[in-house]
């Protein structure tokens, strides 16, 4: 059964979700000082709430992806007190169920790519717990944003592990939700109780899906391109910040750190970036990727070659965030446009 339910308006949907906020943490895209992010709706100002509809239904992802809600930028997993030589260890409490409203297909696929890493044995329980606790409400984009390359990466309108699909019926202004997982069904039931109604049909997106790049071809082209002087040129332009990696929805690298002051402390993991020299620099000083060229190359090869070899898929969803925010304008296109005609011919 794939029930379709409808809210009279987006406002009604938001209201219904609000009603569930004692049970779920409900997050949705909004703007904060002009920057687009997913934020808990309970913490939004009225002004911010008014942005939610536009950004949820928009054909372009916000700057911040949904990743931080499943793989937080900092996550404590051991808390401890050391008093008079005695160590007392606690693990933080379990995560709460959460609803992510207005996630994009690229977000969904990016999580599926992270799943390949984190849910592979040994399973990363911290991630899995949040993944299991998350209901994704996804709007399938009708078109693409200026920096979107989701069509190339086969992500356009992917619905894979979305729990509910969302679209707006322009004529009636109704917001339609279609459940497509167990979690989705449960939420749909709950939303029905909050005043939403069943609807006979779901509005499917208009534009046909384009053919995607072939991951093996890209991987092969990348491997053939390894010795190209292009990488040195690109590295000379890169300034080595972590913008690309921190805004990438598929980057999953992390660092493990300890913190202690007086008797209290914590061990946590926190996002790390392969663009930082100390990412690979060892305490003794040796660094297997000593130059920026090594690091730049590693990032692109990780996404476009190694990931294909290890996980059978490209490690990029074409969301365009890295290119949009790169202070020196380096994007996935910068590389894809150079690795050979064959790829671009499709």
């Amino acid at each position, binding site marked *: 059964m794939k029930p379709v339910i409808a809210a009279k308006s987006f406002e009604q949907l938001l209201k219904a979700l609000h009603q569930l906020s004692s049970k779920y943490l409900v997050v949705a895209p909004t703007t904060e000082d002009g920057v687009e992010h997913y934020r808990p709706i309970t913490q939004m100002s009225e002004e911010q709430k008014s942005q939610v509809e536009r950004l949820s239904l928009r054909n372009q992802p916000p700057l911040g992806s949904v990743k931080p809600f499943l793989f937080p930028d900092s996550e404590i997993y051991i808390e401890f007190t050391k008093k*008079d*030589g005695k160590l007392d260890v606690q693990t933080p409490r379990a995560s709460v169920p959460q609803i992510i409203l207005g996630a994009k297909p690229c977000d969904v696929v990016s999580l599926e790519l992270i799943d390949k890493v984190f849910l592979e044995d040994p399973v990363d329980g911290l991630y899995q717990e949040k993944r299991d606790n998350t209901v994704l409400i996804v709007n399938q984009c009708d078109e693409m944003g200026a920096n979107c390359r989701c069509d190339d990466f086969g992500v356009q309108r992917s619905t894979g592990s979305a729990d509910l699909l969302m679209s707006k019926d322009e004529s009636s202004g109704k917001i339609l939700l279609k459940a497509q997982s167990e979690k989705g069904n449960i939420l749909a039931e709950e939303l029905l109780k909050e005043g939403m109604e069943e609807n006979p049909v779901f509005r499917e997106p208009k534009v046909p899906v384009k053919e995607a790049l072939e991951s093996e071809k890209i991987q092969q082209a990348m491997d053939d391109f390894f010795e190209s002087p292009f990488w040195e040129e690109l590295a000379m332009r890169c300034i080595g910040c972590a913008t690309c990696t921190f805004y990438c929805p598929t980057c999953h690298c992390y660092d493990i750190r300890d913190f202690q*002051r*007086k008797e209290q402390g914590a061990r946590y993991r926190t996002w790390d970036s392969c663009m930082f020299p100390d990412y690979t620099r060892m305490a003794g000083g040796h660094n297997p990727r*000593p*130059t920026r060229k090594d690091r730049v190359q590693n990032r692109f090869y990780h996404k476009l070659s190694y990931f294909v070899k290890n996980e059978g898929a490209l490690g990029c969803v074409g969301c365009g965030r890295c290119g949009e925010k790169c202070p020196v304008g380096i994007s996935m296109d910068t590389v894809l446009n150079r690795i050979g005609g064959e790829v671009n011919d499709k």
Partner: protein
Amino acid sequence: MKIGVFICWCGSNIKNMVDVERVAEATGKMPHVVYTQDVQYLCSEVGQSDIGNAIDEHQLDRVVIGACSPRMHETTFQQLMNRKGLNPYYVEIANIREHCSWVHTDKAKATVKAIDLVKKAVAKSYYAVPLHAESLPVNKRALVIGGGIAGIQAALDIADAGYPVDLLEKESSIGGKMAQFDKTFPTLDCSACILTPKMVEAATHENITLHTYSELEDVSGYVGNFHVTIRKRATSVDEERCTGCGECVTKCPAKVDNEFDQGHSKRKAIYTLFAQAVPNKPVLDRKNCIYFKTGKCGVCKKICPTDAINYEMEDQLIENDYGAIIVATGFELNEPTHLGEYHYGHHPDVITSLELERMLNASGPTQGKMYRPSNGKEPKRIVFIQCAGSRDRHDGNSYCSKVCCLYTAKHTILLNEKFPDTESYVFYIDVRTAGKNYEEFYERARQMGANYLRGHVSKVEPLGDSDNRLLVRGYDGSLGEQTEIEADLVVLATSIEPQQGAKKLAGMLGISSDRNGFYSEAHAKLKPVETQTQGVYLAGVCQGPKDIPEAVSQASGTAAKAIVLFNRGQVKGVPTTAMVDEELCSGCMQCKPVCPYEAISQEMITERAHGKARQRPVASINRALCQGCGACAGLCRSGAMDIGGFTGRQLLAEVDTL
């Protein structure tokens, strides 16, 4: 790492307010603390041997003391460490007496605080590093800059102690300002009579080398090891050949104003500075020499019996190494032309005190006769104006020139003695007579008839009479009304100022000047002759206005400092100096200007990176100079600069413990 913690009771001083046993117990649980003990008196012999025994028994490598202020007994415990073969900087002291038991009244809270303080010390000791003082050999030769009375005195004292001294003087003779004076207050000794023997002694002393007509060209290095370049200006007179007969001076046709007499007489283009000049050999003033101006003349060369005149002579650069430098560059007098109300420079009968001094001097331009420059007649009424340019925030210097009150008293006395029918009027703000026998001297001046008027002079103007006399308008504070005095001569007590080139010299020596341009001593009270640059000392008025006995005693003070340095034979720095982590240092040298001791310089190091050897600059500390203040470390962005005993890690550890 094995740390022993020792808590002192200080009898009842600590124990009454702090539960010492609890402190020992609580800190004993910290990592690496293997031994704790509370002791009745840690500073006593018993306490010391308790620590010593524990070091032996438990193989302690660090010791933490909870006791009185480290300012009290740090050395005691450091010496104990030394005796035990441990570095003295492996002892850390928590001040639980002055900062805790003595200032608090709640025993429970004081105990908690004492525990915190000792824990902080333990945490700091985790990151203690062994420290040693750096020592450098000293070049036992002194340079004295300035051949006035202060410079001469300093040079003689050092020379008498057996060390070689170079005495540098920019004029052609040593003697300085004192050589221009007639008498000295308060004794009225003849200035020349007491100065000339000293000048001769300096010139003939086996340990003193005179460099007259010379200036400082460059200074590098640091205490014990200064490298100095001296520029000896060309005198055009071969010193070896010249006998000082004076024939050339007599025959020289070029006449110019004599600066030594403040322009009240003429001298020749080839001249000796004054009759008793030392060395008593002429120099040729090329700016005014006819030969140098026109290429014709050459009289001096022709008549010199020893062929000592050499027109081709060039400036000589002399390089020498010194261990200490004494700066005794003296002062200048302000030219009061900017004080328009006194009419100086507009009326010839308004003169400065130094001009008067020259007139009164038997060997001066008038052979001791008084005259009015306007008409040559003897002045009958002389008005002295004090603080002409001193203590004047608006048009002059805000400070007091210190000697004017007394020399003006001297002038009135001398005038009264030599020319009993002259009247002296003195306008003053305050009369300052701090100094032995000074008040008596001033009293004597008044009793001898000098008229002292407390008040400002608002204007000096020509009276317009046939005698061209002056009208001095002023305020008489004792009468509380405006007063006018007709005067034959007006004498301005002008302000003492630093030498023109003082700033440049300060730059070369790395010493600082105060807001008035006088050189700054290292500490106003306790280091009055030292400067921030170790090995550079200050004597005389270059440090601030002072009279002759003060200048002389300060000079002897500098000599003592230099002699101490030479006797010790080495400069020993403090152990807690700055240290540079070359790996982190970018060599940006932001730290360099911060250092008050010029202890930081840039150095090139070679390192291998990416398979290539490259040179790069880093900051480098001269550990003999660095005093360990840490201003550099407080500024260094990457934390490359650290201070031994107070490293970033240690301070962070302390902060993190509290």
